[in-house]
């Protein structure tokens, strides 16, 4: 898509060009969590599919991947806090208006469930409990993989908030692609086939969501094409495209399929970092805030004030 300059280089006024918004204080742990959280959630759902269809090798692999990824997620989330020792304050209240509060409670249910499924898988202890936990984790998995899209969208940052319709499905696609791609690394033959197909379908969803998002955003989406976000975003698309192609030809070529799996997972990870940096860039330039709001006012869509 060709880049357009913001509202035809319309003049906008500012206070010495200084940002109106504060830059997000989150560090790289947060986009890393968006990746591992999505991987864990989608892997749990993939494991449930394997559980239902009797694909034992895939079930085992996906349960273990889900546990490893959720453990990494917990680490990323806690170390990013300003006061990591107070992480448990997240469970002081349940606040429906805070996607982070909703997500904390979701993880508090999902983590133990996917952990129990994995432990039962490895030890062979209480397989019925493991299967029940696998069902809980598999059902919660899609929520874990997509609520993060709401988390970033529920902010004042134009590149995030204006992308609110597309971020969850973008993250869902990346989660599916990475769950399939990672599972492929540990499987071969027929057992691996659902993972390969999931990786391809996830990559398609991700690429489609990204195109839709760019089209919808228009000028407010400028940060996605510029600077660090633009570079990482372009790399993400190329990795995902190359990975999907390798996966497509990898039906009976396990090594090619594995390479494809690595590429789509890397693409999904890069996409989260691109979104993260686009938000930082969007907050840094007051023109995005002013242009978005002035445009809204010009259209008479101002909240509460009838046009």
């Amino acid at each position, binding site marked *: 898509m060709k880049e357009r300059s913001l509202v035809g280089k319309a003049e906008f*006024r*500012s206070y*010495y060009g*200084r940002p*109106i*918004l*504060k830059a*997000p*204080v*989150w560090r790289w742990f947060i986009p890393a969590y968006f990746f591992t959280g999505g991987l864990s959630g*989608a892997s749990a*759902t993939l494991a449930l599919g394997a559980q*239902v269809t009797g694909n034992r090798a895939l079930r085992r692999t996906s349960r273990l991947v889900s546990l490893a990824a959720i453990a990494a997620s917990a680490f990323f989330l806690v170390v*990013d*806090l*300003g*006061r990591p020792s107070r992480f448990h*304050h*997240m*469970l*002081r*209240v*349940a*606040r*429906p*208006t*805070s*996607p*982070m509060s909703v997500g904390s409670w979701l993880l508090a249910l999902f983590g133990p469930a996917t952990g129990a499924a994995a432990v039962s898988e490895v030890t062979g202890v209480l397989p019925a409990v493991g299967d029940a936990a696998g069902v809980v984790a598999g059902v919660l998995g*899609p929520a874990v993989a*997509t*609520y993060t*899209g*709401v988390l970033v*969208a*529920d*902010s*004042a940052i134009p590149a*995030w908030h204006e992308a*609110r319709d*597309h971020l*969850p499905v973008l993250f*869902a*696609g990346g989660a*599916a692609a990475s769950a399939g791609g990672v599972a492929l690394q540990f499987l071969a033959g027929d057992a691996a086939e659902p993972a390969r*197909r*999931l990786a391809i*379908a996830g990559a398609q969803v991700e690429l489609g969501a990204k195109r839709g998002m760019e089209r919808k955003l228009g000028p407010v989406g400028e940060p996605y094409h510029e600077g660090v976000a633009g570079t990482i975003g372009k790399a993400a698309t190329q990795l995902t495209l190359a990975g999907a192609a390798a996966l497509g030809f990898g*039906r009976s070529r396990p090594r090619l399929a594995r390479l494809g799996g690595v590429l789509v997972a890397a693409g999904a990870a890069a996409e989260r970092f691109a979104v993260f940096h686009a*938000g930082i860039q969007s*907050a840094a330039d*007051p023109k995005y805030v*002013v242009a978005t*709001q*002035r445009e809204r*006012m010009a259209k008479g869509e*101002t*909240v*509460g*004030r009838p046009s």
Partner: protein
Amino acid sequence: MTVVLPPDGDLASSYDSHPQRMGFFTDTSICIGCKACEVACKEWNRVPEDGIAWLGSSYDNTGSLSANTWRHVAFIEQQVPALPSVGGDAGVRWLMSSDVCKHCTSAACLEVCPTGSLFRTEFSTVVVQPDICNGCGYCVSACPFGVIDRRESDGLAWKCTLCYDRLKDGQQPACAQACPTQSIQFGPLEELRARASARVDRLAEVGVDGARLYGHDKDDGVGGFGAFFLLLDEPEVYGLPPDPVTPTRDLPAMWKAAGRAAAVLVLTVASSFIGGRRARR
């Protein structure tokens, strides 16, 4: 654990009985840029030093509100035709404005806070409890005004408390007390709103162009500010958003988008176990 819906500014749901809603009316038309408010705030609230530097933006060497700046005086120099009614040098207009947390009726920081650290006081102001905050930083990205920020030294979110401690003792906030021109007026919000409307009318009468109220409208995107302003130019000239909206207003639509995305994910996984015919040769 308790399920807590964050209260909005009318307080009906949170307290059985409560004092009147208190707030600020900052009339920038009489601000002289003395920065007594910045200093009084720092001293009373023991806010740490936030860097001493020349910013090259008129007399403003503070830059913006932050974790360590809860009142910020903006200085704007404009080339304009002489305005005899206002005075000053012909050809130059100097705008000065003391910015502060808006204590929104629908406060994004409070709505997204996952720990319950941010809360609505009995005066309908929005305050951080530093012993509860775990420094998650969500409020920082949620505030449409870029007010609240995380302090590097202690990892906690900080902003104006509207001097909650002083209010409880029947005092006015330190900045309002220190203001020598009554540019910063403190009082019951309803009273301030009436006073502000009269002031805008008066300025129009004497021929001051462009005087407008910012944040007094209860129907705006944040439900009206608890601390609102009289400005002499567009809000963005002062570094303020022209049409702020609390991001959580769109939350129902966002959860629906997440629901659709979750459904897509379920279908994608399910189809990867089914669609085998095409793949087989």
